[in-house]
């Protein structure tokens, strides 16, 4: 135990006029951490699922993301090809090595050149899969892991994220509940992403594409 640590904790306790917490008070705090209570949650996202999806789309668009709805996951590859062609983007893709993503019918899109790995410098377009979408602010939630390298979310110019409509929740707290239900603890990185990268550091004028992706395209697949 470092001297600095002991001294800082001692000064805190002196200020609070007590010793280390013990007994009932400590148990209350332990209980609060074990079962985190929810604080005030804005009513805006307390909606039936279909309306949560609508709210998510509206707010993601407001944050300058683009959103395309497709009938099911199998329709994702064709939608990605159409998006790249519409935007005049190259057909080289880096795909997150996620079994759910790699299992999609990419073979039906012969124009694509696909690699399944983490991102490296120079990658133009990456495709990843979102763990959840949060309707409250149109926010994507991505978890790091072997199937979902974090570099895919930040290095490419174009970030395409596949989100299933039934993964959309209302409030931030609902997203944390889903993460806890997953039962694997906190991943190294949880990324909440709301629109493409931007900066207003030059004369307070917002410009898209600062250091992260210039474009964020969400392919929203039913169900």
């Amino acid at each position: 135990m470092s001297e600095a640590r002991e001294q800082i904790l001692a000064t805190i306790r002196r200020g609070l006029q007590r010793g280390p917490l013990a007994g009932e008070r400590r148990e209350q705090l332990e209980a609060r951490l074990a079962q985190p209570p929810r604080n005030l949650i804005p009513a805006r996202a307390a909606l039936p699922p279909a309306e949560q999806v609508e709210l998510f789309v509206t707010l993601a668009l407001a944050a300058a993301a683009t959103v395309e709805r497709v009938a099911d996951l199998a329709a994702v590859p064709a939608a990605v090809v159409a998006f790249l062609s519409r935007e005049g983007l190259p057909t080289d893709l880096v795909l997150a090595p996620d079994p759910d993503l790699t299992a999609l019918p990419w073979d039906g899109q012969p124009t694509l050149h696909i690699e399944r790995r983490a991102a490296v410098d120079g990658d133009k377009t990456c495709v990843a899969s979102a763990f959840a979408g949060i309707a409250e602010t149109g926010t994507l939630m991505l978890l790091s892991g072997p199937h979902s390298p974090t570099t895919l979310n930040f290095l490419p110019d174009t970030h395409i994220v596949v989100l299933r409509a039934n993964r959309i929740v209302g409030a931030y707290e609902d997203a944390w509940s889903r993460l806890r239900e997953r039962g694997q603890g906190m991943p190294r990185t949880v990324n909440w992403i709301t629109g493409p990268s931007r900066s207003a550091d030059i004369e307070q004028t917002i410009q898209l594409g600062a250091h992260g992706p210039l474009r964020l395209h969400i392919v929203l697949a039913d169900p």
Partner: protein
Amino acid sequence: MHPTSQTFKANASAALHDAALQRALKNLKSGFPGKRAAAIAKLPEFDALRDAGRDLKNHVLEHLDFYLERFEAQVTAQGGQVHWARDAAEANRIVLDICRAVEARTVTKGKSMVSEEIGLNDFLAANGIEPIETDLGEYIIQLRHEHPSHIIAPAIHLNRDQVADAFHAHHGQYGFTERNENPRALMSEARQVLRQRFLNADVGITGANFCVAETGTTVIVTNEGNGDLTQILPRVHIVLASIEKIAPTLEDVSTFLRLLSRSATGQEITVYTTFSSGPRRPEDVDGPEQFHVVLLDNGRSGMLGGEFQDMLRCIRCSACLNHCPVYGAIGGHAYGWVYPGPMGSVLTPQLIGVDIAGALPNASTFCGRCEDVCPMRIPLPAMMRHWREREFERHLSPAGFRFGLRAWAFFAQRPKLYQSITRIAARVLRWLGGRNGRIKSLPLAHGWTAWRDLPTPQGQTFQQQWAARQEKRS
């Protein structure tokens, strides 16, 4: 950073006469307050959330030792390391030792006010390690050898032509030989230059907006994505956090996040909110191999239990700066240290001493806007008054001011005398003002009359009016 708060009056005067600064400050006034108001109008629960945020942070501060220990235990359990630093020198030394252990030559940095507070860049550079700021605003001011003038918009004191000059002077070596004033082109240039620096850095240093005790997680919010490239590409990620950044749980951090960006930029949420827990896992294919958190005290623990404890609720959103008439007139550099505006006027005397920074709590019109907009409901004007009292107690205020205050106190404690003196003074002032009712100059009050006329008192004194009113009632 060497403070210049002692010369606040001269700094402020220079700022008022700096045409480029005054031009740049217009961007502040036309931007943030309107955007904040619009965002809040869309969230009917905002004021109730402010109450919740205030109560939550009070709960954290009352149990800060417990939560810090839990945070440390959780970081450690995930393979990270927590380092405790009592002051700037200890924090700098810890960071240097981590960098040296991996033979680091370059360090990329996300925006961190704690890093400014401890003067990390100068310290690393003096020890042969190159720090590279990656937030666009921070990068611009690093090229200009300046410090941030605003917490979330560090280069708000600059205009595009100044940015163009800085890039033109430094980017030739990367093949950018043409001077460009277009903000979009300037940003694209910085993106290309900094991308290589991200990829080559040995260590990445970020701040933390919050430290979650439940999970041992540090949280940063950014719009650029620079904080993320800073922490996922190098082998080592160091987080600099001050001890009051604790949020107990992920639910609690969600409450703070709803307040932070709306109060700051008027966004519903920033583009990137990143939750980092430990180093990369064995199965991961990217991410840092080492994860360190440096917890800095630097005088904060001493604020607990005292009249400045509420200041530790601050989440550094900048709303108080954005709405302050003083900040809006002079910008951030005039305050002379790291934290400007109303929050700086309260925090700076605590961190560097009221003898050096005593002018700051006096730089207030007491309009109360800062408290009105503070998402954590910090009573900033009341705390500035506390500092003024301390300054007076410690005989730090100027002699003329002290004499005046004592003279006033003498009369205020003798109501009869006070009333007759004010009656006489009102008559004299009316006489001095003559027929047009305005006084153009007055002995001992040159500071007022040099800039504006003093209107003469109208009618009776307050006490006379009050007495008359009471009589009427009975």
